[in-house]
């Protein structure tokens, strides 16, 4: 009886194995024909309320002008993350033509999966990307020298502060002293001591790979004058500048000016934290709830705002290889990222189109909305996540080291960054 059961189990496994062996890679499609094909396409976009509203009007405008090439838009299906859903869709072969929420950190992985279309494959692809975005476009090039994403919009990360909390602590609410690390720490201590808020600042202390984009990375970009985490296949963060940034955050955690605990909700809106480190997308959520001001992220020596870099927090548009009507998709991509549509996105969401000169392109908007002007200025000095193989593994390794040393103080931050740098160098060297 036992032998029969064993035989059956082995047969089942063998069958499964055979099926798997037969189900590997199969033949390719006709990419050249698809590049010029036109017809109906589907696009996905973020579930952010403002972006959904923008997407609806953009699609309506396109469909009115092109009834024979109908575009259907939908929000990215729910999952643990957009990247996970997109990865699954690529594997299943049912990804849409365009996704207006492609994270630059995932592009190398999607590219490896064979899920993306190089925009260079269109006659005007490369020139369109570079003329629209300017020299910042270089950061979005893949290691093979091609563009697999259109840099679409950025949310340059800055320090938001609660004017009421600062006023309670007797801190200047127009030009608060937040430029150098020393000033930032002194202001933090003051606002917490005066009970302006329980914590000075509350970056998410959790261990997801992307959380370092909202604590370490903006300050690292500022401190180094615009360096990426990895450059020319080598990690950059274990430098003297990187260690200064880590030591700064360590002080905030050690002095309980930042919390080690996960917060459910928005600590800045709730008044639990006096400051937040975030991009302009959040302004809509602060409306009527917090009286805020914003300044560039601090540097050790207090660089002037005009020289301070930060993390872009960009979301881009990519074309997916499952797309049959790529000719239409390319035209829709250009239409959706045109000067007119970018202006509507800016108007509706306050997010900065990744254009060469946002402030100069939309002067009326910034005249009407002076609060957003500093974000437009900052958008000219942003740093993207490096477009390298194993991007997410690199960020997770970095986060693990940062979390252990900086947030929880179980290792010297400098030693932890040195250890992470060795692993990251190995990962970055893999093709």
């Amino acid at each position, binding site marked *: 009886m036992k032998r029969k059961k064993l035989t059956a189990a082995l047969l089942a496994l*063998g069958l*499964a194995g055979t099926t798997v062996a037969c189900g590997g890679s*199969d033949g390719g499609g006709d990419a050249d024909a698809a590049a010029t094909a036109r017809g109906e396409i589907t696009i996905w976009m973020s579930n952010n309320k403002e972006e959904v509203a923008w997407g609806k009007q953009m699609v309506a405008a396109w469909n009115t002008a092109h009834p024979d090439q109908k575009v259907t838009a939908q929000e990215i299906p729910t999952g643990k993350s957009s990247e996970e859903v997109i990865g699954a869709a690529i594997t299943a072969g049912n990804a849409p033509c365009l996704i207006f929420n492609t994270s630059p950190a995932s592009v190398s992985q999607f590219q490896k999966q064979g899920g993306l279309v190089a925009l260079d494959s269109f006659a005007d692809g490369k020139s369109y990307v570079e003329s629209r975005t300017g020299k910042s476009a270089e950061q979005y090039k893949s290691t093979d020298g091609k563009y697999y994403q259109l840099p679409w919009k950025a949310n340059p990360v800055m320090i938001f502060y609660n004017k009421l909390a600062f006023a309670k602590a007797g801190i200047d609410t127009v030009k608060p002293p937040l430029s150098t690390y020393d000033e930032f720490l002194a202001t933090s201590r003051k606002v917490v001591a005066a009970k302006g808020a329980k914590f000075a600042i509350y970056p998410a*202390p*959790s*261990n997801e790979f992307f959380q370092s984009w909202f604590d370490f990375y903006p300050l690292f970009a500022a401190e180094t004058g615009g360096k990426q985490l990895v450059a020319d296949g080598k990690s950059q963060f274990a430098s003297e500048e990187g260690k200064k940034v880590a030591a700064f955050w360590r002080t905030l955690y050690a002095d309980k000016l930042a919390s080690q605990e996960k917060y459910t909700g928005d600590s800045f809106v709730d008044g639990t934290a006096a400051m937040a480190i975030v991009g302009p997308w959040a302004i809509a959520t602060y409306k009527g709830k917090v009286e805020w001001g914003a300044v560039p992220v601090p540097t050790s020596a207090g660089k002037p705002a005009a020289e301070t870099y930060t993390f872009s927090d960009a979301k881009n548009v990519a074309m997916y*290889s499952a797309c049959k009507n790529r000719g239409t998709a390319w035209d829709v991509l250009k239409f959706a990222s045109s000067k007119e549509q970018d202006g509507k996105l800016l108007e509706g969401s306050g997010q900065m189109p990744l254009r060469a000169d946002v402030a100069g392109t939309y002067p009326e908007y910034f005249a009407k909305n002076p609060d957003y002007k500093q974000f437009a200025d900052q958008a000219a000095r942003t740093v993207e996540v490096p477009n390298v193989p194993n991007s*997410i593994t690199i960020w997770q390794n970095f986060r693990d080291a940062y979390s*252990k040393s900086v947030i929880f103080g*179980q290792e010297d931050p400098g030693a932890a960054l040195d250890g992470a740098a060795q692993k990251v160098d190995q990962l970055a060297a893999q093709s």
Partner: protein
Amino acid sequence: MSQQRVLSPRRVERAGGQPPPTRRRGLLGGVFGKHPIGSAFVTPYLVFLAAIFAYPLGFAVYMSFHDYFFTAPGAIVDRPFVGFDNYAAVLSDPAVRRAFGNVGIFLLINVPLTVGLSLVLAFALNSAIRWRTFFRVSYYVPYVAASVAVVGVWLFLFNADGLVNRVLGPLAPDPSWLVNSKLAMPTIAIYVTWKQLGFFILLYLAALQNVSKDLYEAASMDGAGRLKSFWNVTVPGVRPATTLVVLLATVTGANLFTEPYLLTGGGGPDGASASPVLIMYQRGIEQGNPDVGSAIGVLLVIGVLLLALIERRFVGREGR
């Protein structure tokens, strides 16, 4: 009254002098055996098992021995056989080793606590107590409630300013429960015990219906008190259910994911509450290395099978 001799069917056939009816089993009979109708009823479930369990398991084993990553249909990639390389990578990864250690701590706390509490509570709820239905429902509600919502409540209870620390006052741990590397996993183990208790109580309640009241009366006549009756009648009487509870708690516990993902922000602090399934998700799905994720999965399956065999040997020995 004469006593008739009962013969076995085979002996009846012989006794009747008739040879057994010989039926030629056709192709259908060859495939489906003596009971084709029964086989037909079982087949859908077998197909389900093959598609949902056997195929993915076989696929996972295949992936774990290859340099495998998910690709778009039509993408032509090389997926060479790499032998035990993925297993070597996994076993030399401190984060994976720690995750297996963490889940060991989890099981050491969760399984005995689940068995003890659910048995005692089921015994109490089986007795004629007031508000019995209310208590039964109360214990079952966390089991059916959405994890995300319940995790929110526990974050509120166990954060530094939470209700638990307020009650404890100066005795509250610092760092607090969920960011304390020594307490994070035990807190998760207690949370999971509480959340799943209703289901296991239900199993024990069903088992308690099969324990004869005569046994309690006999024990009482022999002078056994409530405690002795519980120990000498109830515990042995529900031993098959205990075996089931231990196995189910072990299997579900070894697959721990939601709690470290949501309650401790991705296995924090510093990986102290990371579970193998969480690491599997990070490596396999987030980081695009399903070959490494599969190797972790296969090791986990082997570990759980071994553990289940040991548990069955010790817990279920008198139930066989």
